[in-house]
């Protein structure tokens, strides 16, 4: 059992002792006895005093337990008689679901979001169950594409907070394509993942427009104390509804027609590139002509270019020229 989980178990035992109507006002020796009996190892007075202090004061832990010491009764009690930390009813299925969610989230490189989530889950379960066994099969059964050490991921928390709290942000940005540094002031609206990369979308004061920035190109974001601007016409869902990827090259939706080989057809039928994908024609030997209605994006162009041997675009003409010009 990890230290954190064990700490939650101690908090829960302390809580149970204090709210025990049949033996109110437990003293320090009684608390230590109860904890040692449950956990099966020795604890010092100072360790339990520290636990009580954390339960009372730690804002991240969140109990803010109104624990007082009664000199007359020589024991601990809650100033609020209705207070208890273990008043969250959850069952075994809930616990399984929470632990599965923790595992899933932890595949995101053990970042602070998942650490905080795991911490919250520990707290919920420990405050409800006597003991839960975390030493069960730890074999990884979910693996995502998230690559370790991906640059910029360390800024996820601050940018998430900025978008949530409506705080403008200033960060340094390096454009790979333009090979240029810039210092951007952005009013962040949305964090979006596409093909295992994260992007921040918001109103850029520099560009006077909504722009997308890859987190891997972001350096040292500062939260600003200036007024937040929410562009009235911005709707995240609409903004990306007809875009494959994050960098649209225009605002105009177009019908794109392309033919794919039989070897690619099974993949694109089972996993369409967009909701608008339609089969325009079945060819006798298994190849297909497909269409999608999309705003052409850099990512769509990359998608077509990477599949040149199995895919040929016929319309629109400008896209054909761009893809196949010598």
């Amino acid at each position: 059992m990890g230290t954190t989980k064990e700490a939650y178990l101690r908090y829960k035992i302390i809580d149970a002792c204090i709210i025990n109507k049949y033996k109110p006002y437990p003293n320090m020796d009684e608390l230590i006895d109860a904890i040692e009996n449950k956990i099966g190892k020795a604890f010092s007075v100072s360790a339990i005093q520290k636990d009580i202090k954390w339960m009372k004061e730690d804002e991240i832990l969140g109990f803010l337990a109104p624990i007082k010491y009664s000199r007359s009764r020589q024991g601990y009690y809650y100033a609020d008689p209705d207070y208890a930390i273990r008043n969250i009813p959850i069952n075994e299925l809930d616990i399984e679901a929470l632990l599965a969610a923790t595992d899933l989230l932890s595949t995101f490189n053990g970042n602070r979001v998942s650490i905080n989530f795991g911490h919250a889950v520990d707290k919920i379960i420990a405050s409800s169950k006597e003991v839960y066994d975390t030493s069960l099969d730890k074999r990884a059964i979910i693996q995502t594409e998230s690559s370790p050490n991906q640059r910029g991921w360390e800024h996820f928390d601050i940018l998430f907070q900025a978008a949530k709290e409506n705080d403008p942000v200033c960060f340094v940005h390096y454009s790979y394509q333009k090979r240029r540094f810039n210092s951007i002031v952005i009013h962040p609206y949305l964090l979006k993942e596409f093909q295992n990369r994260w992007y921040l979308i918001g109103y850029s004061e520099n560009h006077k427009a909504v722009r997308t920035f890859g987190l891997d190109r972001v350096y040292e974001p500062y939260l600003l104390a200036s007024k937040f601007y929410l562009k009235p016409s911005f709707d995240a869902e609409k903004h990306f509804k007809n875009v494959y990827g994050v960098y649209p090259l225009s605002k105009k939706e177009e019908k794109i027609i392309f033919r794919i080989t039989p070897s690619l057809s099974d993949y694109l039928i089972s996993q369409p590139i967009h909701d608008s994908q339609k089969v325009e024609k079945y060819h006798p030997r298994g190849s297909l002509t497909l269409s999608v209605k999309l705003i052409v994006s850099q990512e769509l162009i990359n998608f077509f270019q990477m599949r040149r041997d199995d895919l040929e675009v016929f319309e629109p003409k400008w896209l054909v020229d761009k893809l196949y010009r010598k």
Partner: protein
Amino acid sequence: MKSKKTHKLYNLPEHDSKKDNLKLLRVLSTPEYLKIDFGYYATGYYKRGGWVKMDKATVVRDTKKGKAYKLIDTVNIPIAPAELDFNTSHDWLYFSLIFEPISSTTKVIDVIESDPGEPTDFNLYNIELSNPILIKK
């Protein structure tokens, strides 16, 4: 959340510089230090992009009063004689210089690595500290 009213950010401040491959990005002025962020582009002058280093005698100077503020630390760039060698002429570097805190009345500063200096020195003049943005805690 309160703002750090004493932490002032000057974004892309106007200034004079003759170096095309050095971009002044931000100046952060706090009661404890002055931090200046730069972007640097390696050039094709050297086959593998050359190198960068910062002279420890680099100062920020109040352009009008002449008072100098010492360099106290750097981030991502070594202090000479150590140097950072680039691998290619396509390389780039984001780095920061940290100086003693400047007077709150200072409105224009210079960054002087060497005076009068060579073309390769990091000298920037007349950096205007106007229109500050306040940083949140």
